[in-house]
């Protein structure tokens, strides 16, 4: 098996200010399926092309932002190994018992140097509404809204991105596909980490405040899907940040927009296939405009400042 260890981003738990509005946004506009609401008020959703039970969890709170991002791991041996290595590096690792989220096995949880909580787990129940497996049609349920296929990646902002990079590379086996560096000092300003064949599974930008969320990204099929998503954003007066455009980094096509609590979302398509033997792609900060927004060739005011 070529991809082992950490397989992919599995789920995120997002804080929202108003649950009813958020459900309309994530279910009807982005097109996720409702999986259920639990007694503690958390709402579970999934994208239609995901096999696992859920990928997006909404928690109502008076402050927007990200509670946790979790990665799925291929087997328990790896999970034990990560736990041991994290502890060995001085991280406090918390065990979360199976069932804390419905359908999810035991997790381990740690706080990265950038102030973000990450969970790792092996087991999640399969959904009845996943992709078909027997003479499969392209979808089992009719896609809705922006037709998000899956939860794809996150971009997170925090201080010690070198520290978080080290954890993901040295302990969790990720590779760095691209970096943005300061022209003079070579200091890394932004970095793109992958555990798979995707150009990125997690991205980090250096920022004065720890633990911030820049965006949660959803995969859509192609450039035309981005046009259709943009139509929905205008039709329903969704707060749009930028796009449709393309990233120089990853070469993915994109729209950034905001959920009703101000958390940034992205619909994303394309991007190159990454292999661990690929050389690192490097952008100088003086070219960062093209790196982030390839057509505009400049950052907008919001890229570096607007986070939750």
């Amino acid at each position, binding site marked *: 098996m070529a991809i082992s260890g950490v397989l992919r981003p599995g789920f995120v738990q997002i804080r929202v*200010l108003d649950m009813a509005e958020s459900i309309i946004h994530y279910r009807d506009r982005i097109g996720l399926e409702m999986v259920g609401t639990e007694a503690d008020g958390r709402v579970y959703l999934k994208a239609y092309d995901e096999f696992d039970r859920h990928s997006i969890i909404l928690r109502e709170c008076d402050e*927007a*932002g990200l509670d946790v991002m979790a990665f799925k791991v291929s087997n328990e041996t790896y999970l034990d190994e990560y736990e041991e290595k994290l502890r060995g590096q001085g991280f406090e690792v918390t065990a979360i018992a199976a069932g804390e989220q419905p359908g999810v096995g035991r997790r381990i949880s740690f706080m990265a140097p950038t102030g973000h909580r990450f969970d790792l787990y092996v087991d999640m129940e399969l959904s009845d509404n996943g992709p078909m497996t027997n003479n499969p049609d392209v979808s089992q349920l009719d896609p809705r809204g922006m037709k998000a296929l899956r939860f794809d990646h996150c971009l997170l902002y925090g201080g010690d991105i070198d520290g978080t990079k080290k954890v993901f590379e040295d302990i969790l086996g990720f590779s760095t596909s691209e970096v943005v560096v300061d022209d003079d000092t070579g200091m890394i300003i932004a970095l793109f980490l992958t555990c798979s064949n995707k150009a990125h599974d997690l991205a980090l930008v250096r920022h004065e405040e720890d633990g911030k969320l820049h965006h949660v990204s959803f995969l859509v099929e192609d450039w035309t899907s981005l046009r259709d998503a943009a139509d929905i954003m205008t039709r329903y007066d969704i707060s749009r940040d930028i796009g449709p455009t393309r990233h120089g980094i990853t070469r993915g096509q994109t729209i950034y927009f*905001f959920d009703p*609590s*101000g958390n940034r979302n992205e619909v994303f398509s394309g991007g190159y296939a990454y292999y661990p033997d690929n050389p690192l792609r490097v952008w100088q900060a003086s070219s960062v405009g093209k790196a982030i927004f390839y057509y505009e060739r400049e950052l907008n005011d919001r890229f570096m*400042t607007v986070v939750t």
Partner: protein
Amino acid sequence: MMNKGFQISIQGSDKIVTCREDESLLSGLARYGQKEVPAGCRQGGCGVCKIRVLKGEFETGKMSIKHVSAMEKDMNFTLACKTFPKSDMVITVNIKGDRKWQ
């Protein structure tokens, strides 16, 4: 009945803009190309549009408590994107975004 809107003035600027009752201060200002209040998420989550109301009545939608604490709210700090005018208003602008006010 269509409300004609309220006059919003920014302290230290001679510009006065008209903001409808059914739109946020931020979108009212944006309609005039007014850039004194930066637009971020427009959803009360990021805090970059923080202002203080010096005069006038208003209502607010849900805002992240990280950017407007209960105490600040009592002092008429608010987020322009979640502030809806109920009378003419005078505001001051925190152009540095979500820095703490002194």
